[in-house]
């Protein structure tokens, strides 16, 4: 009996003294952030910024670095597919500029190649094909 009381008191004390710290994972659309993603800071940050800026109805951030002559686990070559209402009536080149602008920091620091597919939901519903990235010609990092 005594033990039960004591442990209950201890639990209460812990609750009062040290409120449990809550950690919130950043919002990543309908996908859960897992440990693997936490170890991919560039990909995570690209995803986060695109979601914040375009509220995409569909988003793909694909790390294609493995296709190129860069060390294993690199985050240098990306393909992003952003389907957003914000691209409505915006010319293609302007859409690319919008995406480039949002990812400016990453482009200056870590991204070596970025392939962009920026579509409106209407375009996306008619065709969901995205062309394959070309094979590497060995010039990466040159």
């Amino acid at each position: 009996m005594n033990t039960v009381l004591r442990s209950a008191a201890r639990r209460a004390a812990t609750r009062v003294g040290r409120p449990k710290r809550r950690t919130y994972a950043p919002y990543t659309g309908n996908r859960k952030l897992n440990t693997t993603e936490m170890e991919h800071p560039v990909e995570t940050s690209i995803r986060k910024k695109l979601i914040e800026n375009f509220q995409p109805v569909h988003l793909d951030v694909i790390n294609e670095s493995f296709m190129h002559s860069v060390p294993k686990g690199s985050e240098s070559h990306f393909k992003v597919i952003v389907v957003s209402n914000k691209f409505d009536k915006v010319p293609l080149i302007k859409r690319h500029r919008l995406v480039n602008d949002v990812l400016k920091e990453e482009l200056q620091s870590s991204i070596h190649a970025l392939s962009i597919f920026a579509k409106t939901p209407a375009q996306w519903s008619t065709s969901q094909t995205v062309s394959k990235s070309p094979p590497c010609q060995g010039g990466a990092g040159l």
Partner: protein
Amino acid sequence: MISLFRVAASLTRPNIHRILSASYALSAEQKTRLDSMVNKEKLVVFMKGTPEEPRCGFSRAVMEILRFHGVDQNKFVTYNILEDEDTRQGIKEYSNWPTIPQVYMNGEFVGGCDIMIDMHKNGELIEELQNIGIRSSLLDDPEKKV
């Protein structure tokens, strides 16, 4: 938890490449030089490698598209930015476009590889080429699939 901190730290840590590339601004001479480079021909491509030997898949794709439209090699000029660091950085500032290849028509920036592929697919490229006086061979060969 530890990995969370590590990620946060790596995101905020200033990175040497960022410092090196962030402070790049074009001088007046560089601007004039690039102006004349993009106007060298009606069609100009800044790429990695040469048309015969592209050093990057995206640059190769642009060359393949032009070849597909039967654009003769003497109709356009290419610059190999791997051999010219000044141009490599300068052209990105000039067009405010972060990646290579870059295509210019009549001195105006048209886009990179993705945009060329898109214009090729939706037929716009035929018109754009026509605007600069180049007749796409696809017009004469309707059999060829776009």
